[in-house]
């Protein structure tokens, strides 16, 4: 698992945020710790053979929600937390593909 600063910057970019150079240095160090941690997982015999456990216990429900309308928010409520809106819609600088 070779990791370098550029790879970290790529990941940060994918996550849509930036960090300072020192932060990337700290992270590089933490990645080193992660690798050490992962070795502990590696040491479990036959760890890759079983099935992943996604929920704490195997559980299924048989429940589906009835298709009956609830009460929606008012337009004012929807926009109450929005920093910038126009004509009842959330406004952003133009999204170009």
């Amino acid at each position: 698992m070779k990791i370098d600063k550029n790879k970290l910057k790529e990941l940060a970019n994918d996550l849509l945020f930036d960090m300072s150079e020192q932060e990337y240095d700290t992270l590089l160090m933490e990645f080193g710790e992660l690798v050490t941690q992962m070795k502990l997982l590696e040491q479990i015999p036959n760890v890759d053979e079983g099935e992943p456990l996604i929920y704490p216990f195997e559980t299924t429900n048989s429940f589906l929600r009835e298709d009956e309308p609830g009460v929606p928010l008012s337009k004012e409520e929807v926009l109450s937390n929005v920093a910038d809106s126009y004509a009842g819609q959330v406004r952003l600088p133009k999204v170009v593909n």
Partner: protein
Amino acid sequence: MDYTALSIKEIHDLYLSGKVTPLQVVEQAIAKAQKDTNNALEKTTFAEALKQAKDLSNSPVEKDNLLWGIPYFIKDNISTKGVETTASSNILKGYIPLFNAEVITRLNNKKAISLGKTTLDELAMGGSGMSGHLGYTFNPYDETHKRRVGGSSAGSAAVVAAGIVPFALGSDTGDSVRKPASYAGLVGFKPTWGRISRFGLFPFTPSLDAIGYFTRSVFDAALLLEVLAGRDEKDFTSSLKEVNDYTKYRAGVGGVKIALIKGISDKITNKTLLEAYEKSLKELKNRGAIIEYVNIDQVLINAIFSTYFVLSCAESTSNNANLDGVKFGLRQAGETYLDVIKNTRTKGFSPLIKRRFIIGAYSLKQENQELLFKRAQKARRLIVDEVNKVLSKYDVIYLPAAPGIAPEFNQKADNLNIEHLVADNHLAIANLAGLPSITLPLCLDNDLPIGVNLTGRAFAEKQLFAIAAVVEEITGLKGLQVGSKK
């Protein structure tokens, strides 16, 4: 009289006998909160609380409703309608939820009175109480403000330990209620996964998350569970299992089988803690418990933290992808929409959170999933299977909740030291396996508390309380808080 230092039940009895009114109790709580210096509070709602208390004081006491008029605080990652909720992160500055979390709705129905929100490690991702946007939250047991109260439910632990309110809500993903409970000498409870609705709880790692709470007595914890437990259709992972009459537990350990996991307990070196632990074991035996050391493969024990860490970092990146400034919360300007989102997330998240996210995103990348994320999920199954095997033969696992007293802020967590890793993080077992788990104070070391933890079978909370109540009686630390006379 110091009302807020009492338990829920004790306050209720005083209400019944007319010796005090909700207004008096709430006024006292607010006064204490205003004087508190532990940096435990986010948005407070004192005016509303006083109004509610006044209204209740003018109405008859609800006899069978023990939560009537009881003041409490709420960890700031739980949605409160009309009250700013930030998860102690700058990215949620100004976010005012349009709905209450299910647990808040239920507490409102019971006429409990919220005084406001408490600090946490940012977005609940931390265990020190140091990473919230308002800075460190202090452990009330150390007046010099040099010690942690732990996290992520730092503020909630602090306000209950400081005697400001008899209970406070928190959340527990790896140990975020049960560890600070140890450092703050409190009862810290996490229910079975799915027992309490997570609707309105800001998600950190849904397959590990649970709403929990701090009280100062086991009975109060059972009482809260009766109110908060139960199926909620708004949470598809909430259990359809019926709710038990938890407060009717019969304290006792006769014939109860208690397992001690050697690979964890032998990592403890604190002498005071070990003495108290051994003493409690003797007392439990005297009361009829059958206590045995069991072995779980050390390799699995050593992997508990890594498993938890990879899973939680990975899932947290996805769960916080909605924080972009577009629909709510902080928004920074930008030339393009991508700039807006990028500037917002850059400014809004702390460096620690960002580093966690990057590690998480790395583990989720398709090319890394097998070796990281999926491997952690597979390790999870192996660990959980082992733990459940133990609990198929024993009623409860009984272990020190932490290796020692609350660390100082500048003490670095030595996560490369396996001993420390194990002793400090084994509580995550209950999250990995979705089991109910409770921490309660065991002893004091230099006047600083250390707790012990009990973890039981899924949905067996009533029995858990019954056993914990005996421990509570053995330690004599029921009601422990800062300034308690021992």
